[in-house]
């Protein structure tokens, strides 16, 4: 049945409002990043302004952002790869052997407030002289991404029929061989989903790096605060910095939209 005309008009209006309220603030952020601080303070130049890239020059050159972009990327990348290496077999085992209690331990990591772990972590890692290094940032971010990988991949392996693995066993593969040569290649969409989500969550993570990084290893979310002074805020620089942090991840997400959505909604429909 086709919806009534009145409903269709209402839907167009309502969804236009929704889209505008979601997108307009982001457009405003990018616009402000292209303005001089004088123009930001001038409301008559809200949209009619002559764009400048000075703020980006400030962010990328003076503020050492090339380094912070690398830090964010490197930490997210290694944490994601390591989480997949540890998480894929674990999720497989938990799915095939129905280890729901063990899965619960891993999922506890999602529930617990991060602050309660940071004091002990800081103590242990500073004794090991690791605070401020990449390793400790990667480990702490893996604490977020590994449970995510396990959670997403458990659901994925649950949905994969076991017949193909059984056929592989009959054909002479070992269980581990069947996992490696049959199950993993079949799971590429799931692995992509888990990997992308893990990367996004690590890229966006703030609290762990706030405590565990130093001036050279800090990630982008922490580096943003360089533009917030005690007395005043460099709005142009700040908006350029926020754009540098958010834009890459938004562009990536748009290209792999399908995977992002299936990762975020994983487990939602099983109840």
């Amino acid at each position: 049945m086709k919806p009534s005309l009145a409903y269709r008009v209402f839907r167009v209006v309502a969804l236009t409002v929704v889209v505008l309220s979601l997108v307009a603030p982001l457009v405003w952020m990018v616009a402000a990043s292209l303005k001089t601080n004088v123009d930001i303070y001038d409301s008559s130049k809200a949209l009619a302004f002559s764009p400048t890239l000075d703020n980006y020059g400030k962010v990328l050159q003076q503020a050492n952002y090339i380094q912070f972009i690398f830090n964010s990327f490197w930490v997210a990348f290694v944490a994601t790869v390591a989480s997949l290496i540890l998480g894929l077999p674990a999720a497989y085992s938990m799915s095939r052997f129905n280890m729901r209690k063990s899965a619960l331990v891993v999922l506890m990591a999602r529930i617990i407030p991060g602050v309660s772990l940071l004091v002990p972590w800081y103590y242990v890692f500073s004794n090991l002289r690791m605070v401020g290094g990449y390793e400790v940032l990667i480990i702490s971010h893996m604490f977020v991404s590994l449970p995510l990988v396990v959670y997403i991949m458990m659901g994925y392996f649950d949905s994969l029929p076991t017949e193909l693995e059984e056929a592989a066993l009959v054909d002479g593969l070992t269980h581990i061989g069947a996992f490696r040569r049959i199950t993993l290649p079949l799971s590429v969409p799931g692995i992509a989903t888990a990997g992308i989500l893990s990367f996004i969550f690590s890229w966006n993570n703030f609290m762990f790096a706030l405590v565990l990084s130093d001036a050279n290893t800090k990630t982008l979310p922490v580096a943003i605060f360089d533009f917030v002074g005690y007395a005043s805020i460099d709005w142009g620089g700040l908006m350029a910095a926020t754009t540098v942090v958010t834009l890459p991840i938004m562009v990536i997400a748009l290209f792999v939209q399908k995977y992002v959505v299936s990762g975020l909604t994983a487990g939602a429909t099983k109840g």
Partner: protein
Amino acid sequence: MATTTEAQRGAPLTPGWARWANDHRKWLFAAPAMTFVAGLLVFPLAWTVYLSLTDSEGSVRADSEFIGLRNYISVLTDTDRFWPAVGRTATFTGAALLFEMVLGMAIALLLWRPFKGQKWVRVAILLPLVATPVAVGMMWRLIFDPNIGMANQVLGWFGIGPQPWLAGEHTALPTTIFIDVWQWTPMVVLILLAGLTSLSEEPQEAARIDGASTWQRFRHVTLPLLMPTVTVAILLRGIDALKTFDILYATKGRGGGSFHEVETLNVYAYGLSFDYNKYGVSSTVLILFFLIIIGAMWALTARRSKEERA
């Protein structure tokens, strides 16, 4: 165990270690990940429990004395910082969750039936969701700036006077709730949309033939069938809303602002640990916070299993 027979049925495994690995693959596969998580989780948690029973302060290496439950007594009788923080956490979570669920359900229903241009709406929905929360906080800080922000200009078009937004003692918390709703309503939309898409058409058709109105169909057919997904959405969003830190820190800085306007339990505990180095008290707050989270989850899942039995 069934695995041995399966292994025997399989091909001859020449090297002994390969057979051993195969037979023990259940734990061989699961152990590295579990050890990693448990190592970062169990020991710190136990230590936090221990610290909460001591007067540890200044440095965790400094001598501290075991003082039993004294921290718990002083925290639970602290009407200056602790209980207001509990109140703000409850207000923030409750209000954000309410708006996100209602708006999220409305938008999901609008997107349920396919139409032209739906792709673009979905793109718009994804953007806030993947944006870095700290950056989102900064972005809204500019928009809500009382002097130069766009928000007051927009209000001006409608003849409404400027508001202090994040800068006001009583408007800061509602403003941060708004930011949370902006960023995370899309999450609820995606989850509910996934649930709606998986519903079968027959109950809808049957209700329509029986002459049920649109509202009746939603209230008595769609909503009950969607309830498991709704619970998942509440659970996922609820846990994250309780633990909100990034946007509060980005918009109001340490201690949740000079009047602690947005100081929730998480922000309070962070400040106790890393601004004041009061590890004993901070651990106590965290243990209580953790109990609150567990309690909220338990209440929600208990309600769900009761519904499932009914």
